[in-house]
């Protein structure tokens, strides 16, 4: 299920980010975008109420690191362009933590390996205030974003086989700032648009607050409540955005 979902999201993302016509000129509304981002992620599993012992299971197995998470995101601009561009998009990512299984008796790390992997997917609505660049030539584009997220995860044991898998849903919100690189070489930017349909290329800094706990069930009293895969810190990612 997980690979199929990831493939579906990736394909839809690629389809949505269709290139614009080569004769689109400055000021013509964008038709979509494609973005790749990287950041660091550490799930908030150990913060779940009711867990016993210290350190928590994530810390015990994987330590205190924050492995890198990768995202790819495609979006389609809606046919509305007032103070900015509104896009609906799909994203898919990958993240994995590697650690050592613990001895049952002593609780000490063994030489057996264990991994926890996540393929997060997201549905996003992004509002990008691109008028600063389009009308005032200030190469900064602030944006706000809200998302529905689904984290598909699996755990492997020492043999490499999956011992447990599942999916946890949630949401995210936040925003960021994009630096339009076109101003560095406007001529090159125009050639790029004519050749590939890419209207703008931007560097992005993205801040998102996520809540990935099946919409609050982790705070309930039910014995089947979900764990919390929200990032222990605000998601800070850096990316490269291509606007078509």
């Amino acid at each position: 299920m997980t690979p199929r979902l990831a493939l579906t999201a990736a394909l839809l993302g690629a389809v949505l980010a269709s290139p614009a016509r080569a004769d689109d000129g400055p000021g013509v509304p964008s038709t979509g975008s494609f973005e790749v981002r990287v950041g660091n992620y550490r799930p908030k599993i150990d913060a779940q109420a009711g867990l016993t012992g210290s350190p928590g299971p994530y810390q015990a197995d994987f330590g205190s690191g924050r492995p890198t998470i990768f995202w790819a995101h495609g979006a389609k601009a809606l046919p509305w362009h007032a103070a900015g561009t509104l896009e609906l998009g799909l994203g898919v990512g990958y993240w994995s933590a590697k650690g050592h299984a613990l001895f049952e008796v002593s609780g000490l790390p063994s030489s057996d390996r264990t991994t926890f992997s996540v393929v997060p997917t997201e549905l996003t609505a992004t509002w990008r205030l691109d008028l600063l660049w389009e009308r005032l030539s200030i190469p900064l584009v602030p944006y706000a974003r809200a998302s529905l997220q689904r984290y598909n995860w699996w755990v492997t044991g020492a043999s490499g086989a999956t011992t447990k898998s599942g999916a946890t849903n949630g949401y995210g919100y936040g925003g960021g700032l994009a630096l339009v690189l076109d101003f560095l070489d406007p001529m090159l930017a125009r050639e790029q648009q004519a050749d590939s349909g890419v209207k703008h290329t931007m560097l992005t800094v993205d801040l998102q607050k996520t809540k990935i706990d099946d919409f609050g069930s982790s705070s309930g009293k039910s014995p089947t409540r979900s764990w919390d895969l929200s990032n222990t810190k605000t998601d800070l990612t850096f990316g490269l955005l291509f606007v078509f």
Partner: protein
Amino acid sequence: MLRRALLVAALLAPAAGWAQTVSLTVSPPGPFGKAACVAAGNANDPALSLSWTVAPPSGSVLGTGWTYQVVALTSGGCSTAPAQANVVNTATIQATLPTGSYPAGTTDTLHLSDLVTHSGASCTATTDQTITLCVQLLNGGSVSTSVSATVTVQLGAPSIPVGVGASPGDSALNVSWADGTDSTVAATSYRVEASPLLASCVGAIPSPLTVACLDLNNSVTGTTSNHSLRLGGLTNGVAYGVRVYATSSGGNDSDPSSPPVLGTPQPTRDFWGQYVSQGGTEQGGCAGGPAGLVSLLAVAGLLLTFRRRS
């Protein structure tokens, strides 16, 4: 471009005539190890399939009177008439072939023991034996042309692995080692063998552990081309003596690492097991998932609708 190249090749091919490639293929190609170097009739004697193309000199016509012979040598070349002892097999070419063609894809089947016997190679030597295999095309007893290949009988063994370590895992031992330096024969794979200790030794395990303490009849083995292996299929709480063999490309095993290394598998918890053991209540699966997935796909469909209209 490709069509043009093919056209040129088609035009040039007839003119090239005897310049066509000749070759001899031996399958399996070896090298063969000590266990395969046995007398004829032994079940371990490997059968070798030979397949060759060989051309007579320009202007010659193959037919009655032409023969080919398979020759095995440990020294000398294929272009001269060999001693009769070196001739492994002969056959007469019956068909008359037109000028410009040659018997392509001719085959023969031999055994490694045939090559060893006729070449004068030795299975008891301490160094590798390289046998040159020739297919000679004869006309009236003279070697007209030939093609050759080599077959190696590998008689040496790789170095004994050193620095063996065995860390406990869940129903497994994580074994690691390094290559020794007592042989120049390269190791291409390794065999790890874990043998439970005999009951007579369990109460008083000698240090260092001895082979006499190992129950070799109940050993568990695994192979790898790396320098580490997680050997599963063991029993938690049972003490094992671990030995590692290095194996050459010809299949020759080194002596086992010595002394045996002691290891006892212990139960472990992976991340999920640890989470559950500490009271985690996540159930896994898609208990809360289908609704989220459906909503994701629904919005994706909506986006596609927008795309079609724009």
